[in-house]
C-alpha cells in the first residue's frame, strides 16, 4: 500500500487514517520525520519509512518520544519542515522540551502528531493530550476522518511555519485505524538546506531570555486565533439558526452527522465543527451561540471545547444552554460511538433514533466471553516467564515481578499470570529497585523488553546500581519492537529505512554499569534458564547490586516470516495420545497452539499454529509431546 504515498495526479485512494497522515506529510513538505512506535500511531512512520529514500526525506525511529520530539524541533529550527509522531503516552514524555519550544518558536513548520486512545484499546491510561498544547500554549487542531487528517497535516504545517510555533495535531484511534476515500493533493518534496540559527537570546533559553520571550508566545497565539476564525479551521453545516445546535470536533462529528441524517435533521440543526481548538476562535463560536437556544458539545475525553464554550457564553452574556460533560449527558472517558451519540441526541432532541431498538440479538452478543489475548505460539517470552516462575517455586518464595510495556504484557493474562505490575515505559526497573529499598524481603524481578529497556529503562538501571538495589533485571531481548508491528529497536541492527546499524546489547550496557552478574541465556531451555534465575536472585542478594539476565531469542513471528519467504515451515510438535494423561501442564503454558479434548481427556496441538519451540514438551511430565514426523 505504501506505493500510493508517492503517486501524483488526480486520484482518490482508500486510506487508513495513519496512511493518510503519512501522505499528508509528503504533501506538507515535511523533510524530517521522527517517531517512536505506539498504537494507534505506529503506521504513520512505518508507511513513510518505506518511501523515505525515494522521496528524499529523513525519517527515524527514535529511541523514545522525547528524543523524537527534540530531533524534529532541532530540524525545524534549522529551517526544515518537520513532524514527530507518537501515541498519547509518548506525548507525556515531551512536555519539558515542548514548553521551551513553545517559547522559542520555530523557523520552519513543526507538527506534533499525538494519537489518543479514548477507549483505551491498547494503552494503560487515557489522557486527553489536547491539554498538552493548552498547557504550553501552542495551537491544537484535530481531524474527524482520514481525508481531513491528510489535509490538516498540510494546514497545520503551513500554520506552524507562518506563525513560527509548533502545532499539536491531536487525533484519536477511530480516525487512526478507520479507512475512507482520500483525494490526493500535489506532493511537496522539499530539498531545503539546514541552517541552524545562532540566536542566543532565543535558543539559549536561560531564565532572563525565557522571561523576554514568553510574551511573544502569547502574541503568536493571538495571531493564530485570527486564523482559526476562518475555514478550513472552522466549518459550519446546516441552517443558520435553530433551537438546538451542535459544536463538534473529531470523529464524534461524524457520529452526529449520521444521527442527523438518519433523523432527517441535517437541514434543521446547525453544526459548528472546530478543527482549530486552541486558541478557540471566539468570534465564530459567539456567532454560533447567538444563533441557537441550546447547544450540545461533542468531543472525545475531556470537556476541552465545552469549558471554553461555557466561558465564552458566560463572559458575553449569551443565555444559551450548553449540554455535554458538565451536565452529565456525555461521559468524560471512553471511546464515543454512533450508539452513544445517537442515544444522547435522541434523548435531548426527543426523537427515537432507530439504532436504539434493542432485540434478542443483543443477548446472544453479550453471551460471548472476551477472547483473552495470549503471547503467540512459540513466543520466547513464554519460556522466560516459566523459568522465573519455576525459580521462585524452587526457592519456595512468592517473588515479585514488576512488568513493563510490550508484548510481554500478555504474560499477565491467565493461565500464565506471571507479572504483578504493568505501569509505564521503564517503570519495571525503577519500581522494582524501590521495592527493595523500601525493605521488601521477597526476591524482586523486573521484566523489560529490549526496546523499552533503551527507551526508558536505562536511567532506572543506573539508579538501581548507584543506590545498590538487589534486584534481578530480566531483559526480554527479541530484537524488535514487536507489540506495535516489529519496528526496528536498538537491538535490530537496522534502522527505519533498512540501513545497517550497530546491534546494541543490553548485556554490554549492564557490564558498563559495573553490574557484577550479567548472563545471556535462551528462553527455550527451561531447565538452564531456571538455574540462571536462581543464581541471579542469589547474586543480587549476596552482592547487594542488581543482577542482569538477558533472555535472547528473536521474535517468533519474524523468524517464521523469514522461513516462509524461503518456502519453509517449522516442524511442529504433536501429542502422543497413549502417553498423555490429561494433566494439562502443557495448556498452563498459555500457548495458543494447544487445545484440549475434554471427551478423550487428552491435549492436542494445532499443527498449523505450532512452531516447534518445544516448551510444552519440556513441561510435559510423561514425555507425551514429541516432534511430528
Amino acid at each position, binding site marked *: 500500500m505504501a506505493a500510493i504515498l508517492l503517486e501524483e495526479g488526480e486520484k*482518490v485512494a*482508500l486510506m487508513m487514517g495513519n496512511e493518510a497522515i503519512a501522505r499528508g506529510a509528503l504533501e506538507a513538505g515535511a523533510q524530517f520525520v521522527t517517531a517512536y512506535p505506539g*498504537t*494507534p500511531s505506529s503506521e504513520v512512520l512505518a508507511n513513510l519509512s518505506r518511501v523515505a529514500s525515494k522521496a528524499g526525506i529523513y525519517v527515524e525511529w527514535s529511541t523514545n518520544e522525547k528524543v523524537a520530539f527534540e530531533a524534529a524541533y532541532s530540524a525545524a529550527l534549522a529551517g526544515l519542515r518537520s513532524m514527530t509522531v507518537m501515541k498519547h503516552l509518548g506525548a507525556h514524555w515531551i512536555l519539558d522540551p515542548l514548553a521551551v519550544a513553545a517559547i522559542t518558536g520555530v523557523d520552519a513548520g513543526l507538527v506534533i502528531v499525538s494519537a489518543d486512545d479514548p477507549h483505551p*484499546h*491498547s494503552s494503560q491510561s487515557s489522557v486527553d493530550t489536547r491539554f498538552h498544547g493548552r498547557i504550553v500554549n501552542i495551537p491544537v487542531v484535530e481531524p474527524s*476522518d482520514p481525508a481531513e487528517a491528510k489535509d490538516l497535516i498540510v494546514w497545520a504545517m503551513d500554520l506552524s511555519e507562518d506563525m513560527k510555533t509548533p502545532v499539536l495535531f491531536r487525533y484519536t484511534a*477511530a480516525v487512526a*485505524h*478507520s*479507512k*475512507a*476515500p482520500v483525494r490526493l493533493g500535489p506532493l511537496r518534496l522539499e530539498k531545503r538546506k539546514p541552517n541552524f540559527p545562532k540566536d542566543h537570546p532565543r535558543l539559549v533559553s536561560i531564565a532572563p531570555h525565557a522571561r523576554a520571550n514568553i510574551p511573544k508566545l502569547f502574541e503568536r497565539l493571538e495571531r493564530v486565533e485570527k486564523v482559526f476564525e476562518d475555514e478550513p479551521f472552522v466549518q459550519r453545516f446546516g441552517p443558520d439558526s435553530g433551537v438546538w445546535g451542535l459544536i463538534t470536533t473529531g*470523529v464524534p462529528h*461524524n*457520529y452526529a*452527522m*449520521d444521527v442527523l*441524517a438518519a433523523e432527517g435533521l441535517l437541514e434543521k440543526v446547525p453544526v459548528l465543527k472546530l478543527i482549530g481548538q486552541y486558541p478557540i476562535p471566539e468570534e465564530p463560536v459567539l456567532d454560533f451561540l447567538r444563533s441557537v437556544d441550546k447547544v450540545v458539545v461533542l468531543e472525545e475525553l475531556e470537556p476541552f471545547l465545552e469549558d471554553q464554550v461555557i466561558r465564552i457564553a458566560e463572559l458575553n452574556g449569551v443565555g444559551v444552554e450548553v449540554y455535554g460533560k458538565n451536565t452529565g449527558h456525555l461521559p468524560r472517558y471512553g471511546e464515543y*460511538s*454512533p*450508539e452513544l451519540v*445517537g442515544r444522547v441526541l435522541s434523548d435531548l432532541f426527543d426523537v427515537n433514533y*432507530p*439504532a*436504539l*431498538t*434493542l*432485540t*434478542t*440479538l*443483543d443477548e*446472544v*452478543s*453479550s*453471551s*460471548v*466471553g*472476551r*477472547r*483473552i*489475548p*495470549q*503471547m*503467540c505460539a512459540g513466543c520466547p517470552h513464554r519460556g522466560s516467564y516459566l523459568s522465573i516462575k519455576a525459580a521462585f517455586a524452587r526457592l519456595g518464595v512468592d517473588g515479585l515481578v514488576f512488568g513493563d510495556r510490550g508484548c510481554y504484557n*500478555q504474560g499477565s*493474562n*491467565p*493461565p500464565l499470570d506471571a507479572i504483578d505490575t504493568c505501569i509505564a515505559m521503564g517503570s519495571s526497573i525503577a519500581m522494582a529497585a524501590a521495592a527493595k529499598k523500601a525493605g521488601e524481603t521477597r526476591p524482586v524481578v523486573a521484566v523489560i523488553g529490549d526496546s523499552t529497556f533503551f527507551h526508558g529503562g536505562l536511567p532506572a538501571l543506573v539508579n538501581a546500581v548507584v543506590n545498590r538495589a538487589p534486584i534481578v533485571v530480566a531483559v526480554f531481548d527479541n530484537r524488535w519492537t514487536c507489540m506495535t508491528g516489529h519496528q526496528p529497536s536498538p537491538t535490530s541492527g537496522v534502522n527505519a529505512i533498512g540501513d545497517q546499524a550497530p546491534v546494541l546489547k543490553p548485556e554490554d550496557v549492564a557490564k558498563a554499569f559495573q553490574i557484577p552478574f550479567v548472563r545471556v541465556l535462551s528462553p527455550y531451555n527451561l531447565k538452564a534458564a531456571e538455574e540462571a534465575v536462581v543464581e541471579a536472585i542469589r547474586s543480587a542478594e549476596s552482592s547487594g547490586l542488581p543482577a542482569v539476565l538477558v533472555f535472547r531469542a528473536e521474535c517468533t*513471528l519474524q523468524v517464521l516470516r523469514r522461513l516462509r519467504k524461503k518456502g519453509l515451515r517449522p516442524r511442529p510438535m504433536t501429542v502422543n495420545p497413549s502417553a498423555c494423561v490429561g494433566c*494439562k501442564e502443557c*495448556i*498452563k503454558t*498459555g*500457548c*495458543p497452539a*494447544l*487445545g*484440549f479434548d475434554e471427551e478423550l481427556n487428552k491435549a492436542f496441538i494445532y499443527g*498449523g499454529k505450532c512452531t516447534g519451540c518445544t516448551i510444552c514438551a519440556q513441561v510435559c511430565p510423561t514425555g507425551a509431546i514429541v516432534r511430528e514426523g
Partner: protein
Amino acid sequence: MASAKVDEVNVVLAGVGGQGVVVASDALGLAAMKAGLNVRIANVHGLAQREGSVYSHVRMGSAVYSPKIPPGRANAVVGFEMSEAARHLRLLKPDDGILVVNNALMYPLAHFTGHVRYPGREDLLEVLESRLEPERIYVIDAASLAIRAGNPRTVNVVMLGALSATGVIPIGPDELVEAVKARVPKFALEENERAFWMGYNEVSRGETT
C-alpha cells in the same frame, strides 16, 4: 449489478487474528469505491497476532459519515468464526439483516484452562439459528472450501464469495473478485479467485446447511 445509488449498506466482518478480516474488508471497500459509492471502514485489530478478536465495519452508500456501524443497522454480519459472529449479532438489522457464518468454532486457550467458557459448536449453532429465520442465515464450511481452492488461508475470500451471492451488497461478483485480486499477494491470485467462486457457488446453489 445494483446501481451505485444506495443510501447505506453496512457489513460487519468478524473473526480472529490471522483469518484475513482486514484484507477482506479492504477488498469490499475498494470494490464499493470503484462502484462509485462512498465508503467508511472501521477496523479493530490491535491484538490480531495475539489470538484476539478482529473485526471490521464496512459502510457503503451515498451518505455515510461514521466509520462504525450503529447497532441494529448492519445488513449483514459475516462471521469467519462462530463465536465472533455471535459477538457482533447485536449490530444486525433486527428485521432483515442476514448472517453468513463459517461453521468453525475456534476456542481461545482460556477456554481449555477454564478461565472463560465458550459454548459447544452445536449449541452455538442452535442459538444462532433460533434467533434468525432460516432464509436469513447461511452456514458455510469455509475451511473445507478453502482447502479445495488450494490454500487453507483463503477462508476470508470464501466468505466474501458467499456474501456476494446473498445479493445484499451493491457490488457485482466480478467487480468484487477483481478487488480481491488487487488486495491479495500476487503469488496467490488463482487460489483466491477459486476460493471466491467456491463461496459464491455454495450460497447461490443453496448448498448451505
